[in-house]
């Protein structure tokens, strides 16, 4: 078959042959990316389309869906619980991002050198990343348990609290114990991203600056920071979108408590869809969250864009 095509092509005039050769090359290229395209189509575009479609229906878990147009979107405008959840998610994202990127950068600076001990540290810092969020949360839930866990007993022994205090029962200690868990678990990941940036800075730059008498802080501020902007932007976008989608840790450790104060946006969507069985409304909430995430990511990319590249 291809031999016949080849002969037929060869018989044609040169110009058309060149064009068809290019077309063939394009086709071959398309063929190469086809598996990836198919994956994106099946696992991203189709589900996204389905979600949009569902969000325009009253879609119960049991029973028949009914077309209601934009009613779900109108209803969510007045859904105080959703906006409260979104508010809490932003609050969490703020502190989680500061904690994660701050710790990640500190660890990266600490572990960027060479040597056997450094490799050991790097491995140790990165290890928690490979634990699933669910298992880490279960571990933490046990550590924070007031009757049988480690932390309340430890705090009591250290004299930080008078008597055993249930740290998961009030907002601030509960919130911070989850946030600290996330930082412990994920900081190693951001360390790796930021370290790749640090290691790509030529040693000459810092050397030259040192010879010119720049202090360590000045070198960090004027050489290191600008040169790791790109990996930093990547880390920031990943961190913010990851935190905005937080769910497991609050579901497993706190069940949204105390008093539903730690219900995140995804948690609320989960509740709407699989506790209240309102899949259509849950889909509409998901779409809103998606739009917010895309907007946030675009803003971050724009803020951290390379000035030279933009010109």
């Amino acid at each position, binding site marked *: 078959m291809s031999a016949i095509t080849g002969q037929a092509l060869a018989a044609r005039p040169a110009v058309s042959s060149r064009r068809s050769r290019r077309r063939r090359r394009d086709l071959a290229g398309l063929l190469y990316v086809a598996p990836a395209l198919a994956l994106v189509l099946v696992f991203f575009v189709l589900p996204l389309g389905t979600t949009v479609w569902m969000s325009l229906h009253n879609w*119960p*878990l*049991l*029973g*028949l869906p009914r077309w209601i147009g934009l009613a779900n979107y109108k209803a969510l405008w007045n859904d105080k619980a959703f906006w409260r959840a979104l508010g809490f998610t932003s609050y969490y994202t703020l502190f989680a991002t500061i904690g994660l990127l701050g710790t990640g950068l500190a660890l990266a600076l600490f572990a960027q050198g060479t040597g056997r001990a450094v490799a050991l540290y790097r491995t140790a810092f990165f290890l928690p990343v490979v634990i699933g969020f669910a298992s880490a949360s279960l571990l933490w839930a046990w550590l924070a*348990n*007031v*009757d*049988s866990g480690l932390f309340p007993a430890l705090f009591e022994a250290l004299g930080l609290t008078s008597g*055993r*205090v*249930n740290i*998961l*029962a009030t907002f601030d200690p509960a919130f911070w114990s989850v946030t600290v868990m996330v930082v412990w678990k994920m900081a190693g990941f951001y360390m790796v991203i930021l370290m790749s940036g640090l290691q790509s800075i030529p040693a000459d730059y810092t050397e030259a600056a040192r010879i010119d008498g720049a202090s360590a802080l000045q070198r960090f501020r004027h050489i290191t920071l600008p040169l790791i902007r790109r990996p930093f932007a990547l880390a920031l976008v990943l961190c913010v979108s990851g935190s905005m989608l937080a769910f497991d840790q609050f579901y497993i450790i*706190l*069940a*949204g*408590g*105390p*008093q*539903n104060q730690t*219900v995140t946006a995804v*948690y609320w969507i989960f*509740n709407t869809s*699989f*506790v*209240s*069985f309102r899949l259509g409304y849950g889909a509409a909430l998901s779409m809103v969250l998606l739009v917010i995430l895309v907007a946030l990511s675009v803003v971050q990319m724009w803020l951290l864009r390379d000035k030279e590249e933009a010109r």
Partner: protein
Amino acid sequence: MIIRHFARLGALAAAVSAFAPGAQADTFTLWARADSSTFMPKLVDAFNASQSGHKAELQIVPTNELVQKYAVAAAGGTAPDALSLDLIYTPSFAASGQLQDITDLAKSLPYFDQLSKAHLSVGTYGDRIYGLPFSADSSVLVWNKTLFREAGLDPDKGPTTWAEIRADAEKVDALGNGVDGFYFSGNCGGCNIFTFTPLIWASGGDIFNADGTEATIDTPQMRDALAFYQGMVKDGLVPAGSQTDTGSNFFAAFATGKIGISPSGAFAIGALNEQFPDLEYGVTFLPGKDGGSSSFAGGDNFVVSNGTDKMEAIKAFLDYAYSPEGQTLLARNGSLPVRADVAKEALAGLDERYLIAAEAMANGKTPYSVVFNDLINSANGPWISMLNKAFFGDEASIGPAVEEGQAAMQSIIDTAG
């Protein structure tokens, strides 16, 4: 070859129909939640062995995924013929049009009026019956006899009023050494509908009206019951972990042997006997404020998927499950009997404490709501939010918590209706 095969099949069919005239030999599929994985397989095996006309094919589904799995299967046209469903879901399943109206089948059972009333009350939707009682679990109060003896209390006398619970819990708590007077799962909606509402029922209050269209939780009985628990929390009779226990310690706390009194369920009798044979405990009814008693009649309803053509087999299975033989098998494997006239026979020779649980079941109630999951079982629903706020707040917090809960529940009911 094929022809021979068909011929043999034909002969077989003829033979079967000769044995069971009028009835067709068919296999029906049945789903049950993992909670019933002790008695369900045994019951199904016994049914299949008891006759050859019909066959039940059982599939056990994880408890928390049953509703979702069923919904997906129903949407794809592969729903099981029948399902043993947590009874509180029966109204919402019936309302969604997924279930077969089995009123005629139910009424044709000669012992219909002996079947658990509480199950049937939630199995009925719009005057038609969609669910029949299948397995049962009632809520009761358990107390630790060893600790009672150590505290100088009569180990054979359980408390019969709230004041007695409180007094006994205080005495046990005074033993110290890590022993606490009372335990309940303070952040678990499902646990508390099961064990806390009976305190209100027994005192004359209720949480919904009969058809579940109105929330009636703002009552003096509710406020009293909340104050009763709150008082015990404040005075340190309850371990601190209760405030954030979403149900994982519901059974385990009492099983440690360091809790004086705890509301629990019939399921605990079998579990305690099997896993903690050394624990000496008594079982009594959940009391009202000044006496009386009540219980949450829980368990499963047997429901049939819309459009199944296996009614013959399903009826045969139900007949077997309701027979003295079937009821005995259930009773011996962790479920209370659901048919009153054979209950005694089914429970004969079993731990006496089962009889108390069975009696509690007979006087039990089940709240009726098509949005039960939203209102009660949700970890973030209005029910547990109200309870948690009131249990662990101060006296002034009870009023606002109840009013807020009442409004939130009513708004969910109205939105769904």
